[in-house]
């Protein structure tokens, strides 16, 4: 139940907001998070926005994985499903 979902902020009204979660619109409280702006992606959990999602860090995570392959042994075959 600790699972939280990424949601895009659509409209802000005081300390609450509407956000889009994969097309569905939900309401969320902003009481636990400062400086939220329309267009930001946030994590929502039990009706509260808990953290902003950093695009910069997300891209960096992916870049690190992409660079892994170059270090690895290119001759070994892939082990994916």
């Amino acid at each position: 139940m600790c699972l939280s979902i990424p949601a895009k902020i659509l409209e802000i009204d005081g300390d609450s907001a509407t956000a889009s979660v994969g097309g569905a619109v939900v309401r969320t409280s902003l009481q636990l998070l400062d400086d939220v702006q329309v267009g930001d992606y946030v994590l929502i959990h039990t009706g509260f926005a808990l953290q902003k999602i950093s695009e910069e860090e997300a891209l960096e995570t992916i870049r690190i994985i992409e660079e892994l392959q170059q270090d690895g042994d290119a001759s070994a075959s892939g082990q994916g499903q």
Partner: protein
Amino acid sequence: MKYIDEFRNKDLVDKLVKAIHDISRRKIRIMEVCGGHTLAIRKSGIPGLLPETIELLSGPGCPVCVTGRRAIDTCIALARLPDVILTTYGDLIRVPGSVSSLDEEKALGADIRMVHSTLDALETAKTNPGRNIIFAGIGFETTTPASAVAILEAEKQNISNFYLLSMHKLMPPAMATLIEQGVKIDGYIGPGHVTTVAGANMYVPLIDQYAISVVVSGFEPVDILQSVYMLVKMAEEGRHELEIQYKRVVTREGNVKAKEAVERVFEHCDDEWRGLGLIPGSGLALRKEYNAFDADIHFKVDVDPAPEPKGCLCGEVLRGMKRPDECKLFGRVCTPANPIGACMVSGEGACQAYYNYR
């Protein structure tokens, strides 16, 4: 970027799986302590992608699973009181107590309402001034701030018929207790959303004391595989460190505002965990200043200690000592439609996750 599909990308999954196979030599045991991870690992078939050197264990990461039978019985006793409306998150409703569940009590006429947010419970209190509204609060660091906000709002708005039954728990004491109890773990996959709120620094004492690694992980297959890779790499290099894979939301400090709200409202207390027993300082109780909202103080119900159902191995499953399919009741007597133990009730419970993705 939508932050979901990017982390389910097959090429990235393949790269990570290959990298793990390339570097893994030592046998290691990795435990996840978040029900969300348990579910994601089973659903995406990650165990089948890993080399035999790596063993994945599920730990006490599902809040309804670790909530003891006595706590469930207390909720039931409260729901039976006249003039009470018991509100809670959906997960708790079907957990069996010693004689019934909240679901069965509801069918018998108790006023039990599922809410999505503590603010809905507060709204219920406002619209039912003649009744006592109890919110049965479960969950770890992720969920606690919402309960703290509800108490602060109830105080601010002078809502005198709202009460919290705090069953909230803290993750690091349980992670330490498992090691103390002799469960052999080389590294923890750290719970991503617990840590989003509480901050990764909370694992530093654990790492210092037990020479163990923690990698705080996201919930998509790429996240989990990258976390496994990071743990394997540390093991191969003989390091025990704290690393964050889920950097897009997790920081060392966490959500300071949420932590302040929790700190204002709650203090640490000893708490009973299913399977792990009484763990000092692992629970959260309302501070004295908020006695007026404390269901424990306002409603006296007598509930006896309750043993686990016969044959159920939830206690061992929650400590990673037994796999769900080692329980004789698993899949035969105990199924999601007819759960015997708490670990089969929630989709994030190890037994249900194993059952659904066998």
